[in-house]
């Protein structure tokens, strides 16, 4: 574990700078309530893979907490960002007092980021806004990030009962210089309990079609090209909605362990979990949107499909899928 804790670091601020030669964190600082833990680097496919756990004291954020994380990945550095359990957003005394998490991540050409955290878990009467800003410096900058949110404490019957939840993912091309940056992708989710026409007509549960978890996976760059193509192909191969199902004898006898066999398992399990997903190839990215009745179902599906394709594990190690366990 390497960490300095300079007293000058403002509350919630974290700074991370990963360099390639030598492959190490040149900077790794953080301040309460943010905590960053970096276990030893691993080597996969001849690359040094660093891992960072994003933690908060108490496993979540209370009203007024503000996290501001800055990460720079130099060319040919590789980072896995993880959490330890879902990020809980605690009840706020006033809907106007938010918990905020801001991440600014610069990825240089040839560098790679895998950010597969646990879903955010906003409790009833919480207010939360987060933004993930990615600045890509070149066509070979690699990105695999998942942003997902669940309905709250499902075990206590909470179903999307927070005041506000906002999550913004923006990806900018800065290869022509900061002043000529170009927006490549913007995914901005706005769920507000009270505000707007929709609030008087529809609960948040309705806006997510009564699913218990909703997520977005974004893939980009040569390291995730195969995975992106895999998602698109699996989406294509999914049975059509409303197609007659022939049960019984017609089930093809695929070899155990074959891709067809794995796909059938995923479909069957997904059906039981109320899993719905869609994938699209947009502006050089593969965007996957998914929802399921419960977090477990979504985790299982995501882990299964990433595992069946296999390139995340072979390039970044098994640890990169830790949050999907």
């Amino acid at each position, binding site marked *: 574990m390497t960490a300095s804790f300079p007293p000058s670091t403002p509350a919630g601020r974290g700074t991370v700078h990963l360099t390639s030669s030598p492959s190490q964190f040149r900077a790794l600082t953080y301040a309460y309530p943010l905590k960053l833990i970096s276990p030893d680097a691993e080597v996969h496919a001849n690359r040094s893979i660093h891992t960072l756990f994003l933690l908060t004291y108490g496993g979540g954020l209370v009203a007024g907490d503000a996290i501001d994380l800055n990460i720079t990945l130099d060319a040919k550095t590789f980072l896995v960002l993880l959490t330890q359990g879902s990020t809980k957003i605690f009840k706020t005394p006033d809907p106007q007092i938010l918990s905020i998490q801001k991440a600014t991540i610069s990825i240089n050409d040839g560098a790679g980021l895998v950010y597969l955290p646990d879903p955010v878990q906003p409790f009833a009467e919480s207010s939360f806004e987060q933004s993930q800003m990615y600045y890509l410096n070149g066509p070979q900058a690699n990105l695999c990030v998942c942003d997902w949110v669940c309905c709250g404490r499902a075990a206590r019957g909470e179903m999307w009962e927070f005041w506000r939840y906002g999550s913004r993912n923006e990806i900018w091309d800065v290869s022509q210089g900061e002043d000529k940056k170009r927006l490549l992708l913007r995914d901005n989710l706005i769920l507000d309990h009270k505000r707007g026409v929709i609030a008087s007509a529809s609960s948040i549960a309705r806006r997510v079609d009564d699913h218990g978890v909703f997520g977005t996976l974004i893939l980009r760059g040569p390291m995730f090209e195969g995975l992106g193509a895999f998602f698109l192909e699996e989406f294509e191969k999914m049975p059509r909605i409303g197609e007659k199902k022939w049960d019984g004898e017609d089930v093809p006898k695929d070899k155990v362990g074959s891709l067809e066999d794995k796909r059938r398992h995923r479909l069957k399990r997904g059906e039981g979990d109320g899993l719905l997903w869609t*994938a*699209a190839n947009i502006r050089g990215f593969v965007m996957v949107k998914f929802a399921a009745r419960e977090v477990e179902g979504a985790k299982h599906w995501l882990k299964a499909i990433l595992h069946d394709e296999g390139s995340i594990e072979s390039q970044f190690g098994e640890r990169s899928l830790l949050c999907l366990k």
Partner: protein
Amino acid sequence: MTTTIQSLEAEIVALEAQLQNAKILLSRSQPPSPLPIAPSTTTVPTNNTTSPSPQPSSTKQTITPSSLHTLLLLADSALPLGSFAFSSGLESFLAHHRTPPAHQPALFARFLTLSLSSLASTSLPYVLAAHRQPGRLTELDNDFDASTLCTVARRASVAQGRALLGVWERSLKGSCISDVDALKLFARAYRAQNSQDAQINAHLAPLWGAVSCALGVDEEQTAYVFLFGHARAVVSAAVRASVLGPYQAQAELASGELRAGIEGLLREWWDVETRDAGQTVPAVDLWVGRHEKLYSRIFNS
């Protein structure tokens, strides 16, 4: 005598055009507020037969005969944008919510609210920004493209946007009363690019704002017709999908709920910057995205 009348008539036409121009310049120089629609004191009316008329505007609205004429053109379902081919996720929504025919009108009402809210939150800031600053059209087109993360939705937006650009070039350009340089430049740049590395897509929302502005339609009417046109297209799709009968469809469009909904959405998104546009109904992305997976389809979205 005749010449005097003719010259007076000509002068009136010229002065009216000048007045329109001045109004546009004025409305652009004081964006983005105030919103002419006064906030409703009541919530959405529940009974459309006794629904109150929409709240009077705080500033007196003037619909001149020439702007009425333009509004009728833009609001006409005969405007050749091909909007009838798109259900904006309705067809997929129905496939995901199998229900007996008797429950379908209620299910449709739920969809229409979600769909309009989603359209307003993702697109209205772009319509308004392009109306207020047509010179930003290329940038707005790029940013809208970057924010439309679904192949099916993208195809629908681009198909109608390109159709609108075509209608503007072939039919409406001559009737523009406002400065159209921005649109001309945009159209030229769009036509000039080769298909390999095309960066201009011609999405509907920003083009709707820019074309309406060029035709002298004010911001509020531009935004209102944009949302109303969406409602009309979705309701029409519902008729063709046998969810609503033709009279039910007209009742839906005439209802106080729809008026109050559109006015409320206008107020809500009037001051919102395009960077803060976003998805308020995430399920729409799933329904629209999964439209491609329907076994049978009668619409393109």
